[in-house]
């Protein structure tokens, strides 16, 4: 069929069409505002962050400690048995050096996003956060890191109570 059809529908627009004002369109800005309830599991997580603690939850039947904590184990569909305070240290599972913002603005110093496997959680169980106090060249998978917290009186019960994770100086 495609080999028989020579002309396919669709009218591609070019940048120059807009510059020359040939194209009509309507532009608007949506301004949606939301307030998300934390729920039970994440509520406990945020409350613990305010106290300077990373919280996980444990399922006895699956012997699995997950982070962030939740109320139900999605493997066995039973309630999680308990909340478990984890360490604020971990291992870089993977990372990226990002030179671009969501709206495609270029940035000189890369933002370093990472998945950090948290000590005390089950293997491959981590959270997404950022790395700091590190030369981008030195970041590597397997790097040991520790959370850098906001001062206690500035914490508000949010993931940003951890500013970033920084490398643990070995030895």
């Amino acid at each position, binding site marked *: *069929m*495609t*080999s*028989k*059809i*020579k002309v*396919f*529908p*669709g*009218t*591609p*627009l070019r940048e120059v069409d807009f510059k020359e004002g040939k*194209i009509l369109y309507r*532009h608007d800005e*949506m301004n949606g505002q*939301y307030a*998300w309830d*934390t729920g039970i599991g*994440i509520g406990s*997580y*945020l409350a613990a962050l305010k106290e300077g603690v990373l919280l996980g939850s444990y399922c006895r039947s699956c012997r699995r400690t*997950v*982070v*962030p904590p*939740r109320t139900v184990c*999605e493997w066995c569909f039973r309630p999680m048995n308990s909340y478990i305070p984890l360490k604020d240290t971990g291992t870089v*599972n*993977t*990372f*990226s*050096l*990002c*030179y*671009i*913002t*969501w*709206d*495609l603005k270029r940035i000189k110093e*890369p933002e370093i*996003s*990472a*998945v950090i496997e948290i000590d005390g959680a089950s293997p*491959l*169980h*981590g*959270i*997404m*956060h*950022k790395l700091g106090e590190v030369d981008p060249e030195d970041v590597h*998978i397997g790097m040991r890191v520790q959370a850098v917290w906001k001062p206690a009186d500035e914490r508000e019960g*949010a*993931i*940003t109570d951890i500013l970033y994770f920084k490398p643990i100086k070995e030895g």
Partner: protein
Amino acid sequence: MGMRKVAVVGAGMTKFMRRAQETGKELSWQAARMALASCEMTLDDIQAVCLGTAPDAFDSIHLKGEYLSDGAGAWGKPYMRSYVGGGTGVFAPIQGWYHVASGLFDAVLVVCEEKMSSFYPHAQGAFLTIFDHTTERPLKPNLLWIFAMEMNRYMQTYGISKEDIAHVAVKNKRNAADHPCALLGNPDITVEDVLNSELLAWPVNRLDVSPVSDGAVALVMVAEHVAKRVTDKPVWIQGVGWSLDTAYWTNRDLAYPRYVEYAARMAYEMAGIKEPRKEINIVEPYDPFDYKECHHLEGLLLADRGQAPQLAIDGVSLRDGDMPVCPSGGLLGVGNPIAAAGLMKVAEIFWQLRGEAGARQVPGQPKRGLAQAWGDLMQVGTVVIMGTNP
């Protein structure tokens, strides 16, 4: 399983464009009309319509299924929009398949549309809401993070280089040069071009990524007795599968897409396929990023873990290789209007198995092909296997 045989008998698509003058409705109608015309059917012959389109956030139209219904030919018919993120384009024909296989309908129209250009200043912004609103969005992530981190984990786990993976982008963009609807076909692109393109989020460079696009694709799917009336070259759906992994994406193995394996095993079992590497002639895995083609080939059990880049390097996955992968040019070359891109892969298998793919035709009269898509929060796999035999 007591289900009826289902055939694809027609397909149509628009150009894939960075920005189309047509609305989503107009694109949907263009693709649907072409699909119906290709099998000499009319909307009167169609009993139900399945629509696939990705986030409402792209065009800020709530209930986009209803909005697109006139262009999709849904008026006065049973109609439903399905949505599993990037996996939608291969899920919509699965929905079409069970509509017909169940005996409920004899002929359905499947339409997938995407118009990503409406979001200002860039469609990436529409993806920000995929991150958890409380535990992730305060970190101000952007969409590239998640893919860059998955690619990095994949490379590190198996010792794969960026150069290895760049061969996939080169293959697909070259293949796309033969696709009349392609946005980024380039017969002369080289591995160096990919490696030297702008670094966005290490390890992802610009040419490792597919372009945001506008476009639509449509299929006509019918029961056996209808297929025999309208064509002597039906392409049969032999197997379908889909599966979902955890939404806690930082709590799983990022180097291997287990959910794609589950989806593939479901489809292989339905199709009676024991040795997929010998029994699948053409593969159209989802390739929004070049490493994702590799990731998915491994999840589909068509390459050993960590070995998929070698298929492109050795030429096995070229159009004239032993197992052509993305002969269409894929999302990297043809373009990535999310839901439409997935259905484009199913349409490509349809055209290839009928020997109608023109300059893209894979040699050797292929008998069976597989299309796969992937999406949600990097967690859903959708698979369709099609063949020249029922």
